[in-house]
């Protein structure tokens, strides 16, 4: 184990009866990393976090925080963590200030240090106006801020945040993410969320879990590259409208453009995107290896059409996320009796899941993603 590993999980498994909430989850988080912990609802994000924060014990496997076992050195682990549980459960009858003071007392922070830290934390979390309010009077967004303040009050080296932005408005989210970048410089942060935009803006690395398993773990670029697909967005003028400029050729028909684009080398699939009557827009799936933007331009220019838009879109994190976790959703929507031969179908599904995560290049994948999008 490297000396820089702050959070270490090895083979974490958690069973509730016959249900496996976590199945052999292993990962490491190093010092100074801000890691996004992604997954659909019920994938085991919170369970993992609860194990790391010593709230529950894993059925098997080990977890260490700063080299200390969560089971054997639980108090040491807990004192080096700042944790914000999902939905920030706080004591509603306390005022914000009382709550922070309580958290500080439990963390053994003397009152002068507390005042210093509190000033800082209150500024960061934007709580100055609500310090003397009872927590029950606060909106969910503000409660979440208090939860965050509570997690920061003892200046912990490691932060574990379970959906910290779920109740924040867009402005607050942006602010929070900025702040996260700041504190992420000298701290280790593990942050769970469904919001992929947040991960893209705040984290350099992501771990994706699905049905209790880690299905992807790596730098965002690596994860994005997993599918090996590139998408091009093209739109071509359909009618002149108010624009004084028109191309040299005749105005194209929808099918004409689609067929022409489909004939280009390296194009796998052309799909029409919804637009207004002035343009035809298409999403083109291409191979990762080559760039066909020049070919597309040449085609449009040769035909005398007017190109309104062309850009190359590498796979978004969202697409990868969908592909990797699609099995979850499909299973949830399955009809028919689930009780019968549950275990048998379990195994089957898991195999399928492995396929999905392992051979992302296979042709089945894009199809699966499309099916999910529909």
């Amino acid at each position: 184990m490297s000396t820089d590993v702050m959070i270490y999980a090895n083979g974490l498994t958690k069973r509730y009866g016959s249900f496996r909430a976590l199945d052999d989850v292993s990962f490491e988080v190093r010092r100074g990393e801000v890691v996004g912990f992604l997954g659909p609802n019920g994938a085991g994000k919170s369970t993992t976090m609860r194990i790391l924060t010593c709230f529950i014990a894993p059925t098997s496997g080990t977890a260490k925080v700063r080299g200390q076992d969560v089971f054997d050195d639980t108090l040491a682990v807990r004192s080096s963590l700042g944790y914000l549980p999902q939905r920030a459960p706080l004591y509603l009858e306390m005022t914000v200030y009382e709550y922070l003071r309580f958290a500080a007392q439990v963390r053994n922070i003397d009152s002068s240090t507390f005042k210093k830290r509190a000033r800082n934390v209150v500024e960061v979390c934007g709580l100055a106006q609500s310090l003397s309010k009872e927590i029950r009077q606060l909106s969910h967004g503000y409660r979440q801020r208090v939860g965050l303040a509570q997690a920061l009050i003892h200046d912990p080296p490691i932060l574990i945040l379970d959906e910290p932005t779920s109740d924040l408005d867009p402005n607050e989210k942006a602010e929070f993410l900025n702040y996260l970048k700041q504190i992420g410089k000298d701290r280790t942060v593990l942050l769970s969320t469904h919001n992929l935009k947040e991960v893209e803006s705040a984290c350099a690395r992501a771990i994706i879990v699905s049905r209790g398993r880690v299905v992807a773990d790596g730098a965002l670029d690596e994860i994005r590259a997993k599918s090996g697909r590139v998408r091009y967005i093209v739109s071509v003028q359909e009618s002149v409208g108010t624009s004084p400029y028109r191309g040299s050729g005749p105005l194209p028909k929808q099918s004409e453009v689609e067929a022409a684009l489909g004939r280009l080398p390296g194009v796998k699939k052309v799909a029409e995107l919804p637009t207004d009557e002035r343009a035809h827009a298409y999403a083109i799936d291409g191979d990762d290896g080559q760039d066909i933007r020049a070919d597309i331009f040449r085609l449009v220019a040769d035909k005398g059409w007017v190109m309104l838009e062309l850009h190359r879109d590498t796979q978004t994190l969202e697409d990868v996320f969908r592909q990797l976790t699609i099995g979850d959703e499909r299973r949830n929507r399955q009809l028919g009796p689930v009780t019968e031969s549950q275990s048998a179908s379990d195994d089957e599904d898991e195999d399928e899941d492995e396929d999905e995560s392992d051979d992302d290049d296979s042709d089945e994948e894009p199809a699966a993603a499309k099916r999910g999008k529909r």
Partner: protein
Amino acid sequence: MSSETRDQALEKDSKKKLLAAEEAAEKNRADRDSSRDTEDEEDEEDEEESNGSSKSTSADSVTTPAGEKAILNRPSSARMIWTLTKREISAYMSSAITYIVIAVTMVVFGLYFFFYKGGFWQVDRATMARMFDTIPPALCLLIALFTMRSLSDEKRVGTIELLITMPVKDSEVILGKFFGSLAVVTLAVFLLAAYPLVMFTRAPFWHLGELDWSPFWVGILGLFLLSAAGTAIGVMWSSFTESQILSFFATALTLIALYAVGSVTIVEFLQGWPGDAISFISLQSRFEPFSRGLLDSRAIIYFLSLTTLGLVVAFRSLESRKWS
């Protein structure tokens, strides 16, 4: 050696000794009122001993592989329990219900005591003994009312997750909850002293003669011990369920059943050893000497054991979340 290391050592050893520590802490508190016995000294010795033995083992875990010092930043157990207790008390005090319940209790207890079995004047003596016959069953309900939210509410709202992921031991959570509830119940019990103060002191109130205060205080001590046992049982029930209502009824039924099985009718009906056995575990027959102003050491031990039992079960139940 730095205090950090010492804390660490304490923590290590306490895992094995959680139960012992819990009992000890509990006894320390409870014994403040009665005489201190040798148990305490033994406990202290135990602690010192284990400190020494675990120092060597904890020394290597103090440094992480990164070579930096581990943070073990938490107050001593006593201060932690005090912090939790304070929070608990302030939670009670911030709610108007608490004051209303205490006020209503005072009125109801007063009326009940004054008019019970033909009224206070029937006795024709300056004594409060009658009060201690009437109050315990009502106290059982009061205890159930005050303990029902203790852990149930934390579980329901989810605050328990935040609390437990702070560097707090489970035993400290239980003891904090226990002392917090006990403090409020005790407040209600001590306010009972208002009755004799009104009745037997001189102006501006009645003066019904000189009251012998000793039996009264012994009775109050009995009520306090009864409250401690009841509160422990209440905390225990509230640790089992997320529902306050369920916790209330479970506690109230348990306490009233424990109280009622000691009634003369039942004990005489069973006769012989079953009757003895049942009266041995009954709150009523255990409390009876106190109501007459007698300090019964067996009863004190009974109440303290019941308290410990309740707290240990609550502790185990809280701990069981890890494996559920």
